[in-house]
C-alpha cells in the first residue's frame, strides 16, 4: 500500500536546519489499521503531512501504491490527494457556511461530479455515518462527535485507498472518542487502509499496529505484518 524508504526531512530555521525525520523506513500493507505514536516534536505531524502529500521531503522515497510521490507539481499532488487520500482532522475542518451534505460532497466537487449526483452520493455517506437527518444542518448546529462523523463521511466519499487521521479524537470526550474509533475500525473492515496519528494509547490500542516515532526516527513497529500484538491479543 505505502512504503517509506529512508525518508529525511529538514526544516530550515534561520541559519541552521532542523533534522525532523531521520531515515524513516516503514511499510503499511493494504487494509491495515495503523497508529503512529510519538511525543510532540517527534516528527509525527511532519510525517503525516508527507504521507498526505501536503508536504515534500528532502531525500528517500515515498511510494503510494505503485506511484513514487516526490516533487510533484501542486496540481498533481492535489489530484492524488483527491483520489487516493481521505483526511480526518482533530478540529474537523468543515466549512462553516456549508451544510453537512455540502461539506461531504466537496471532494466530489473537485472531481467534477455534477451537483445532483454528488449530493445523492453524499447523502449515502451521511447515512453510513448515521447522520442522514442532519444533512441540512451547518456544522455550528452539530456536536463535536457529529462534526467528526461528517468529516469522516467527507474523507470517504472520494473512495480513497488511504484514510489519514490526525488526532481524530483529540477534541472529543472519551465516550464519543470510542464511537469514532468504532467507526474507523468499521471503515477499515471495508478494506480501506487507515493511519491514525495520535498520542493517546487508548486510541492506538484500537489499531492493529503502532509505529512509534522518537526524535524523527522510527523506533518500533516499522515492518508490515511483523508483529501485531494488539491484534493477537484481540483474537
Amino acid at each position, binding site marked *: 500500500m505505502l512504503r517509506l524508504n529512508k525518508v529525511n526531512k529538514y526544516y530550515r530555521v534561520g541559519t541552521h536546519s532542523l533534522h525532523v525525520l531521520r531515515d524513516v523506513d516503514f511499510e503499511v500493507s493494504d487494509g491495515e489499521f495503523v497508529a503512529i505514536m510519538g511525543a510532540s516534536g517527534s516528527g509525527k505531524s511532519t510525517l503525516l503531512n508527507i504521507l498526505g502529500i501536503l508536504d515534500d521531503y528532502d531525500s528517500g522515497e515515498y511510494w503510494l501504491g505503485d506511484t513514487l510521490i516526490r516533487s510533484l507539481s*501542486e496540481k498533481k499532488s*492535489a*489530484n492524488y490527494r483527491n483520489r487516493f487520500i481521505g*483526511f480526518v482532522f482533530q478540529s474537523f*475542518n468543515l466549512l462553516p457556511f*456549508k451544510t453537512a451534505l455540502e461539506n461531504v460532497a*466537496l471532494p466530489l*466537487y473537485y472531481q467534477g461530479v455534477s*451537483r445532483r449526483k454528488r449530493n445523492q452520493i453524499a447523502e449515502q455517506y451521511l447515512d453510513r455515518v448515521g447522520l442522514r437527518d442532519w444533512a441540512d444542518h451547518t456544522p455550528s448546529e452539530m456536536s463535536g462527535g457529529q462534526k467528526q462523523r461528517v468529516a469522516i463521511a467527507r474523507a470517504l466519499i472520494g473512495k480513497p485507498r488511504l484514510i489519514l487521521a490526525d488526532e481524530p479524537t483529540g477534541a472529543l470526550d472519551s465516550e464519543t472518542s470510542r464511537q469514532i474509533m468504532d467507526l474507523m475500525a468499521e471503515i477499515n473492515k471495508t478494506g480501506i487502509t487507515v493511519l491514525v496519528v495520535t498520542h493517546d494509547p487508548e486510541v492506538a490500542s484500537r489499531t492493529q499496529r503502532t509505529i512509534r516515532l522518537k526524535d524523527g526516527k522510527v523506533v518500533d513497529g516499522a515492518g508490515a505484518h511483523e508483529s501485531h500484538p494488539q491484534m493477537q491479543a484481540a483474537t
Partner: protein
Amino acid sequence: MIFFVVAGILLGIALLVGVVYTVGSLVWLLIQQWRDVISFDRWSEVLVTIKANKLRTALTTISVAWGIFVLVFLLGLGRGLNQGARHEFAREATNGVWLIATKTSVPYHGYDVGRYITFDNRDYERAKTVKGVDHISGQYYIQGAAFTGSSMMTKRGGKANTFQINAVHADAVYLTNHVIVAGRFLGDADIAQKRKSIVVGKPVVDFFFKPGEQPIGQWLEVAGVPFQIVGVFTDEGGEDQERQIYMPVSTAQLAFSGNDKLGMLELTAGNAGPAEVQAIVDTIKGQLSERHGFSPDDPQAVHVHNNVEQFQRFSMMFWMISVFVVVIGLGTLAAGVVGVSNIMMIAVKERTKEIGVRKALGATPSSIVFMVIQEAVFLTGIAGLLGLSAGVGLCELIGRAHVSDFILNPGIDLSTGIAATLFLVFAGALAGFFPARAAARVNPIHALRDQ
C-alpha cells in the same frame, strides 16, 4: 529634467511589464480553467461564498458601483456637452468661412481710411481657384435694401411679407445646414443663364400657400420681380434660418442694377484644420487687397468670420473637458477596483483555513485562483451593472430636464456600454488576481494546523 524623463520611461516600462504579466497570467489561467467560466456549478459555489460574507459583498458592491456610476455619468455628461456644443454650431456649416467687405481702417497707396470696399465677380472667380477651397459662393446685397434685403417685400396674390433675400451662387447651400424638402437648390445653370429661380424656406411656403398646395413651379414677386420657386428647404436651426429666399446672384445683379458687385464671399474648406484655413483666408485677402487697393494688413477692410477656428476652439475645450471627465471617472473606478482587491485580500486571509481545507480535499492551485477571481468578477460585474444603470438613468433624467442648452442627449451609446461591461469583467479579474494568487499560495499544512 533628464531625471524625470528617465523616471517616466522606467515607470512606463514597469507598468507595461506589470500589465503584460498580469494579463498573460489571466489568459494562461483562462486556458487552464475555461470550463469554470461556463460551469453553473462553479458559479453557484461562488454565490454561496458571496452569500456567506454579506458585509464584504455590500462594501465591495458599493465601491465599484460608485466608481462605475461616476464614470458613466461623467462620460454621458461629456457626450451631452459635446453634442450641445455641436448643436449650438449647427446653424452654420462648422467648416465655413465668411469674408465680408466693409471699410478700410489703414491708409494705403494714397487712399484715406474709411473707404468702402466692394468685391466683384472677378474676386469670386479668383478665390474659387485658391487651393483648399471646397465650396465657394459670392453674395450680392440688393441695392436700396437694408443689409440683407429684408425690407424688400415678397408678394403673391393679395399677400405680402418680408423675408431675408440672399443672392448667391449654387454652392451657398454648403454654407448652411438647410435640408431641401422639395425640388432642388439653385444650380450652376441658374447662375449662368441668370434664371429667375428661387429657393424658399418652409415658412415662406406656409405663408403664401394653402396646406397641400404645390409650391414648386409657382411664381412669387420678390422686390418687384417675379421669380419661380424651384425648391423648398427646412433647417434644424429653427424659423430664423428658414425665413429666407435664395436667388441666383447673377439674376439679382442684373435685376437690381448690381453690375458685377458682391458684398461677401463665403466658402468651406473641407476638413482643413485652422492653420490651413488661415492660409486660405490670407491668400484670398491678399488677392482682394491687390485688386481693391487696401493694405493687406488692414484688420477691418475685410471682416472674416471663421467658423473653423471657433469650432476647433470649442471642440478642443469640450474635448479637454471630456478627457478630464474620463480621467476622474477612471480614477474613481480604479479606486473602486483597488478597494475590491483590498477587500478580497482580507477575505483571502480570513479564509485561509477554508482554502487549506479545499486544497487538502483536492483543489488545484489554479482552481483556487479561479475561484477568487470568479468571486471578484461576479461582485464587480453585479456592482458595475448597478452603477451603469444608475449612471445611464441620471443622464437620461438630465437630458429630459433640459438643464442647460449646452447639454444635449447626455448618455452613453451601446458600444460604450458593452465596452464598459467588458472593462468591468477585466477590472474584476484584475482586482481578484493578486488576492487569488495569495490564496493559491496558502499552505494547507499551516492552514490546517490546530490552534
